[in-house]
Each structure stands twice: as structure tokens, then as C-alpha cells.
């Protein structure tokens, strides 16, 4: 029996989950994210004995790690820690072995009341990931966590808790992977990271759920404490329907964050992201850049909020978001917004939705470069700013390779789109 702080929360959350309808999210009248097509009751938390997945090797390569933990379906199937200074284990196990440390942080920023699926995750999570980097420990190699959905019919209720101690330094990467399959699956995830005073954290979330009917409903929150610095890089490269809330909170004086996100949607994928750059204390800084590209009949909405609360003066932050449409049937939105409840801060934001410029393509073609190559180069050039901000060579190569592959797959529709636009101009 797990400690009461876990069990009591499960019980309370279950009541919320059962009392609430499956939500539909609507924004500004015309943007709707609906789970109508998802049959949650038909899914089950599948358990596995051991890890046997080509897709994990394919994405992680043979890069050395400080720790690697893999949850497939409902349970952790692999965990190895090569750096003995840190703790990485299933959250279920951490609850038993490090109850005080877990209780101090667990769900501090993740209220189960905030929705049906956050409540579901709080009630049903199994396995889980726990990472603790003690104060003063500096590790070079990444700590890697993988969430794997290997077959359709799977529901994965996920919870990750990361605690980075005072003045500790580390890289944490989470991967969300599935092979291409026919059929439905759901990942409903909760992620929380606490960067203690003076900590330096490099955090990445890499999502590619493949071409299956995988739904991802997740909430991720990062708290940056006094004089700590967090670089956070969420990357979305696949998923039938993704609805995520990504918040980074500079909670104490001197805390600083850099948030760099990107997405590439294709086919009939639907991506709905809401990020908040929240400043809860004065003298904090932030810098957010999100870029996306859309192909096929995909839909992508990115809404980014800067929120500066009262009593948080001398904040300096900005947010930019850009979106590029590469297909006549794709539709997108990129909306920056601002809530500032105090004077004496610097906060600015900007957003664009654009298309490839036929004049750029013409220019490149006059140099002998084919249309397909010109498009590839322009889209890669568009993403290059954010790829360089990943500041992680292994991940940069992976992202460049995947974008290049996706563009090759979308070549015909991009050509058709550019042709239409050139004639219309």
C-alpha cells in the first residue's frame, strides 16, 4: 500500500474523473479540439515483461546516458543508471523508497481538479518516472526517459517528477514514441520539474507518436526557483491529436528561462498547444520562441501567454511564435497574448502565420536548385533558428533528419500549393 499522500489523491481524483464529461475545448469560436473520435473505455493499460523496441534504438542511437528509464504501456520495462550520484527509478518505487522527498514535491504544481484527464492521470497513473539530481551534482550525460506505446488499444497514464537540487546541473530528455500502427491509443501525461535555487537544467520533450491514432492529453509544468536557469525544448513531430498545456514558471527572484518549441504536423493531425510563461516573482527573465510548419490537412493551434502577476516588478520577457503553412488544406493559428498585472516590466510578444514565398523559391531555382530542394532548404532554414537553440547536437541531428523525411513525404502537396500561390500572385 502506497503512502496516503498518493492514495488519498488517487481517490479524490477518481471522483473528479468520474463526475466530469469528456471535454471539448473551444477557443475564439472557431477553434475546437474534440475527443469525439476517442473511445477511452476500449483502451487498457497494457503491461509488458521486457523492452524490445526498434523505435527506441532508432531515436536514442548509441549516445551515452547518465540514466535511461523506459515505460512501455503501463509499466517500466527498463531502468539503468550509470551515474551513481543521481536517483532515477519508477515513481511507484520512489514513493516507497524516498517518501519524504517525493511527498515534498509530488503534484505541487499539478492540481487534479483542473480537468477530467488531469484527474484521470492522478487517479490511474502506474509506473512513472522519478528523477532526483542532488544539490551540487553536475552531470554531463543526459538523463533519458522514454514513454513508449507499442500497440493500439493502449492507455498510458503517465507521471514524471524531476527534482534538481540546489546548484545542480543536468540534462533531462523525455521521448514519447510509438511505431506506426492502425488503431487508437491514449497517452494522458503529467510532468513536473522543480529546479532548486541556482540549478541549471536543460530539458527536452521529444514527441513522435507515429501515424497511428494516438491521442496525447498532457500537462507539463516547470518551476524555476531563485537564480536557477532552465532551458526547455518541446518538440512535436507527430500524434493524431495532441492537446497540451505547457507552463514554465519563474517562481523566485533571479530565475531565468528559455523556452524553445517546434512542431511539424501532417496528414489529419490535430495539435492544440497552450503555453504560459508565468512570472510569479520580480527580477525574473524569460525568452520564448515557437515555430511550426503544417502539411496535409493538419490543424495546429499555438497559443502562448505571458503572465506577470502582481508584486512581480522588473520582469524582462518576450515571446514570439511563427507558423508556416505548406499545404492548401492545412489550417493554423499562432496567438501570442499578454496578462500583465504590474507596472515596471518589459514584456513583448509577436506572432506570424505565413507561407513559403514563391519569390524565394524562384530565386533558388534560378541557381539550378530544384523546386523540391528549394522547399526543403527554405523550411529547414526556417526551423534552423529553433534547431540551433536546442543546444544539443544529438537532438539537433535527430530533428533535422525527421523534418527532412517529413518534407520529402509532403513534396507533392507543397509543389501543388506553391503552384497555386504563384498563379494567384
Amino acid at each position: 500500500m502506497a503512502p496516503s499522500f498518493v492514495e488519498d489523491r488517487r481517490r479524490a481524483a477518481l471522483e473528479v474523473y468520474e463526475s466530469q464529461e469528456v471535454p471539448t475545448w473551444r477557443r475564439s469560436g472557431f477553434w475546437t479540439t474534440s475527443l469525439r473520435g476517442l473511445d477511452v473505455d476500449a483502451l487498457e493499460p497494457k503491461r509488458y515483461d521486457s523492452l524490445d523496441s526498434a523505435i527506441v534504438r532508432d531515436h536514442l542511437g548509441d549516445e551515452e546516458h547518465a540514466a535511461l528509464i523506459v515505460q512501455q504501456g503501463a509499466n517500466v520495462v527498463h531502468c539503468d543508471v550509470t551515474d551513481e550520484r543521481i536517483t532515477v527509478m519508477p515513481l511507484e518505487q520512489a514513493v516507497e523508497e524516498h517518501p519524504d522527498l517525493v511527498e515534498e514535491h509530488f503534484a505541487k504544481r499539478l492540481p487534479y481538479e483542473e480537468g477530467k484527464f488531469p484527474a484521470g492521470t492522478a487517479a490511474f497513473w502506474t509506473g512513472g518516472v522519478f528523477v532526483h539530481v542532488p544539490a551540487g551534482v553536475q552531470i554531463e550525460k543526459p538523463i533519458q526517459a522514454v514513454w513508449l506505446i507499442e500497440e493500439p488499444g493502449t492507455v498510458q497514464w503517465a507521471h514524471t517528477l524531476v527534482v534538481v537540487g540546489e546548484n545542480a546541473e543536468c540534462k533531462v530528455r523525455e521521448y514519447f514514441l510509438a511505431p506506426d500502427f492502425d488503431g487508437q491509443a491514449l497517452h494522458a501525461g503529467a510532468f513536473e520539474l522543480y529546479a532548486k535555487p541556482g540549478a541549471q537544467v536543460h530539458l527536452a520533450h521529444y514527441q513522435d507518436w507515429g501515424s497511428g491514432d494516438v491521442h496525447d492529453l498532457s500537462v507539463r509544468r516547470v518551476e524555476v526557483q531563485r537564480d536557477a536557469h532552465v532551458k526547455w525544448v518541446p518538440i512535436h513531430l507527430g500524434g493524431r491529436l495532441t492537446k497540451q498545456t505547457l507552463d514554465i514558471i519563474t517562481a523566485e527572484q533571479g530565475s531565468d528561462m528559455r523556452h524553445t518549441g517546434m512542431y511539424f504536423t501532417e496528414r489529419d493531425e490535430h495539435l492544440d498547444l497552450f503555453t504560459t510563461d508565468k512570472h510569479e516573482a520580480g527580477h525574473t527573465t524569460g525568452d520564448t520562441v515557437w515555430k511550426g510548419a503544417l502539411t496535409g490537412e493538419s490543424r495546429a493551434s499555438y497559443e502562448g501567454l505571458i503572465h506577470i502577476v502582481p508584486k512581480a516588478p522588473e520582469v524582462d520577457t518576450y515571446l514570439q511564435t511563427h507558423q508556416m503553412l505548406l499545404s492548401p488544406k492545412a489550417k493554423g493559428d499562432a496567438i501570442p497574448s499578454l496578462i500583465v498585472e504590474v507596472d515596471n516590466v518589459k514584456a513583448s510578444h509577436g506572432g506570424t502565420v505565413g507561407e513559403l514565398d514563391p519569390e524565394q523559391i524562384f530565386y533558388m531555382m534560378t541557381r539550378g536548385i530544384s523546386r523540391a530542394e528549394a522547399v526543403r532548404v527554405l523550411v529547414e532554414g526556417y526551423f534552423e533558428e529553433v534547431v540551433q537553440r536546442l543546444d544539443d547536437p544529438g537532438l539537433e541531428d535527430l530533428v533535422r533528419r525527421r523534418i527532412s523525411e517529413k518534407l520529402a513525404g509532403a513534396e507533392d502537396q507543397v509543389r501543388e500549393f506553391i503552384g497555386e500561390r504563384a498563379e494567384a500572385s
Partner: protein
Amino acid sequence: MTLEVQNLHVRTEEREILHGVDLVVKKGETHALMGPNGSGKSTLANTLMGNPSYEITEGRILLNGEDLTEADPDERARAGLFMAFQYPATIPGVSVANFLRMAVNAKREEPIKVKEFGAMLKEHMDLLKIDRAFTSRYLNEGFSGGEKKRAEILQLAMLQPDFAVLDETDSGLDIDALRIVSEGVNAMRGEERGFLIITHYTRILNYVKPDFVHILINGRIVREGGSELADELEDKGYEFVREEVGAGGA
């Protein structure tokens, strides 16, 4: 070996701009195509390169006998045609050096060796008095007018086309930049290459002496001659040609 334009009629969405242009540029020759604003000069340049914003309704474009009227811009480039743009596009995220390597390789079977490319680049940059640091900047991003024109001529030098069209390369250049760019062009002239220099003013022609001059007004070539025609134009302006040909067929 020739670049040949036969009875070219070109239109945009709104209206016809070129009303039957004939032009023959042989290898080894330098032609100037002059005309006032709105005469159709840039339309001709863009049409030669296959800009999809312009539609050819009649006539042909031949390069070394090969009909390129319907060819895509990249096929024309690989066939040996080049244009230095009046307003080159910005290519974010792609450095000058990477862009040049891509363009050079587009014309080759095997990719160029790193060392060979570096040597070639250095030679042409020295000629055009371009600083080393220039090559790592994103192409045309934040470039001054003069830097853009130099980057165009650097591409010309690296790609060594059979025929080069220079669209208003002299516009927006101060006298020093004009001299450097002109020297670059002169170094490229020779038996193996033809030039079509499109310009409003005679300035550049003081540095790059043309063998032939054509005057384009209202989408038609109305006068042709040797380099003395440019001198005459310098003295008397376009009005004299207009009067002579009777309002240029407007």
C-alpha cells in the same frame, strides 16, 4: 552558341507587357538593354529565367538552339543561363557559403571537393573585395544594397554561366561599389560567355562597354545600335527616342 528571343509576348494577370521582342546574344558579346521605368526590362529578365508570375503568350526563348520557353527556372540555370537580380530574395537560415555550394553542385554530377570549392570561393571573393566573414552570414539577410549586388556577382563568378542577364545591377550602388562590381563583370567577359546588361542609366556602361545597345520602350525594342547609342542616350535622354519613334507605339 546563342541566347535567342523570338517575337516574345508576355503578360501578367493584368495586362500584356512585352509586345513581341526579338533579341539575339551570341557568346563573347555584351549587349545592353536600356529603357525607362515601366518599359518592360525587368519583365524580360524575369521571363528569360522562367518566373512563374509572368506568362508567355507568344514567341520562344532558345538557348544554344534548345527551346527553353516552357522550362522551369532550374532547368534554364543548368542549361547555362544566369540572372543577377535587381532585388534578390532573402534566404534565412542558409549561409552564403552553403548556398553557393548547393548552387555549384546543382550543375555537377559529383559534389565539388571542399578544398576546390574553398579555393574558388577565395579567388572570387578577393576579386570582388568581399570580406571572409561575409560567407557565414545568411544570404541577403540584413545585407546592404551594395552587399546584395556583390553577392549576386559572386554567384555569377562561381557558377560560370554561358549567358548572364544583369537586371539593374548598377542601381543603388555608390561609385566605389559600381567600380568593383563592374571589374567583376569585366573579369568574367570573354569568348565563352554572353552578357545582357539591363539598365535604366548609362553609368555602368562607362565601365562595362557594350558591343550592342537595344532600347526598349513600352514593351518593344525601338532602336538598336552600337555603344554610341548609349552615348547618344546619355546626352539626349529617353525623350528623344520616344519622339523619334512617335510615342513608342503606346
